[in-house]
């Protein structure tokens, strides 16, 4: 079972890297979402997929009876999903605002902050908002 998951994770990572390397920011977002899901699946897999019994402690004992599922990776993934979701929402808004201001989603053309010629510098009027 782990092998299947490992191959799946590998395929997802490969696909996401292909998308991330694109100059188009929209494709980058899709790549990012895919990559974070691939990583979540990876954590799930390295936590071993051996048993499906929940790690509950019976009334009489103090430890769960031996083969139980590993609960920790799921807690880690849950954290990672929440964080990833928040970041993704931020990235969508940021890219949209950048598109409005710069007028392109092609990263090669986004050179406002790093003009190739010093003369192209666009003086920033909002900088620090004096006063």
């Amino acid at each position: 079972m782990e092998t299947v998951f490992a191959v799946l994770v590998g395929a997802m990572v490969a696909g996401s890297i292909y998308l991330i390397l694109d100059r188009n920011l929209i494709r980058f977002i899709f790549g990012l979402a895919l990559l974070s899901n691939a990583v979540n699946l990876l954590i799930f897999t390295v936590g071993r997929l051996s048993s499906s019994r929940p790690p509950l402690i019976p009334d009489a004992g103090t430890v769960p009876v031996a083969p139980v599922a590993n609960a920790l990776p799921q807690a880690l993934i849950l954290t990672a999903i929440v964080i990833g979701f928040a970041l993704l929402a931020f990235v969508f808004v940021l890219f949209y605002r950048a598109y409005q201001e710069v007028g392109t989603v092609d990263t090669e053309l986004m050179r406002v902050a790093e003009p190739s010629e010093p003369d192209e510098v666009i003086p920033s009027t909002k900088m620090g908002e004096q006063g």
Partner: protein
Amino acid sequence: MSSLLVLPIILPFATAVIILLVKSNVKGSSNIALSSAVLQIIACGTIFYQVHRNGIFASQMGNWPAPFGITLVADHLSAVMVVITAVINLAVVAYSRADIGASLVKRGYYPLMQTLVGGICGAFLTGDLFNLYVWFEVMLIASFGLLVLGQDRNQLDGGVKYVVINLFSTLLLITGIGLLYGLTGTLNMADLHVKVQAIDNKGLLTAVAMLFMGAFGIKSALFPLFFWLPASYHTPPVSVSAIFAGLLTKVGVYALIRMFTLVFTVNVPYTHGVLIVVAALTMITGVLGAAAHNEFRRILSFHIISQVGYMILGLALNTTLALAGAVFYLIHHIIVKANLFLVSGVVQRLSGSFELSRIGGIYRRNGWIALCFFISAFSLAGFPPLSGFWAKMILIRASLEIHHYLVAGIAAAVGFLTVYSMTKIWGEVFWKPAPRADTVDEVSLAAGPSGWMMTPIAGLVILTVIIGFGAEAFVEIALQAAEELLHPEMYLKAVFGA
């Protein structure tokens, strides 16, 4: 005593919440942030005092015993780092009072900044790998907000690059953490130190080490992963640039030092060999990039990169003296670099620009700011007896001691090139007569620097001078930190109890 370690994290978060409630009150927000920053210094100072007096101490969150819960640990390195963070926090909060306009404060500047500081302190104090990832995320979200606050065109453009590469690095980090957990079954760093020794699959462990190196390498702007830094650090308001420049990359450096002294010590010739090469290339490319630029903050940004190379060199050489050099370099660099960014803000106030060609004659207009720049810049370049000289000397000596003549030569040469950039700024900004009036932006020529701007700058300059003249005490602390890093027995004992 165990609750003491929580303070540097709780305090900024509590401050952020309180300021969020009163954020329409600009003066009030600033006052609350200032008082919190003072308390933060006291809390962090107490932690340092405890560590220095009684040795490393740890506290288990929620009383879960060591490998199962989240542990906070303070050794000399962590303690020094939180103290410096608190110092920079105070300086930047004071500076922000004059630098950050009312509209940005109302949009939540202070809460974001305090969240950033809380995240940084959390990253320095945690002894749990997954918790470190969470703190990185906290820092990341806060820094994203700060970077694009105000939504200037430049900021959004720089922000896209910063966000893209940092998200990718975070995913590398969590991949590494996942694999390391799969190998060892633990996330506690002290426990990892024990468990990794017993791993049979050394190849996979080295691969995981390289994942971590890639992730933290992006965070700390190592060669060849540094391009996001000069693309973004010059775009936000100066206060934000200063705290980013001083602290953010250094959290990456700290994480590298921690992981590659505590956990990834099984294949030292390979991992640290890679680090030496990376460190040398980082030093060279950073300083050459700086030489090629003519914008005040972009020059400084490139210098962050070259300076990070020195710290990584200290880690890569992996001797007591070299690690002490890295720690000393961290202390010196955070103060000096944050201060140089603060100075650039005052210069922008006086001249209306960050472009060297549009600035001039600052020495005539304000001798004090020139003096502050002079001391900081030449400390950065490594002039005796300022703090940077000792930092570089320790590192070069450490590399000579183990016969790494080439990197010693590179480190010395990069120091000279740093002088070149600094004299370029000095000549263009301070000595050269002011350019003709029609080329100067008429943004803020009337507004001189206020006391809120000059006091933090002067304070940080005085600290630089103190570190320079009283270097022995600081080297002593750095040596102790290095001893603890190379001999983790004390660290393990603190985490697991007797």
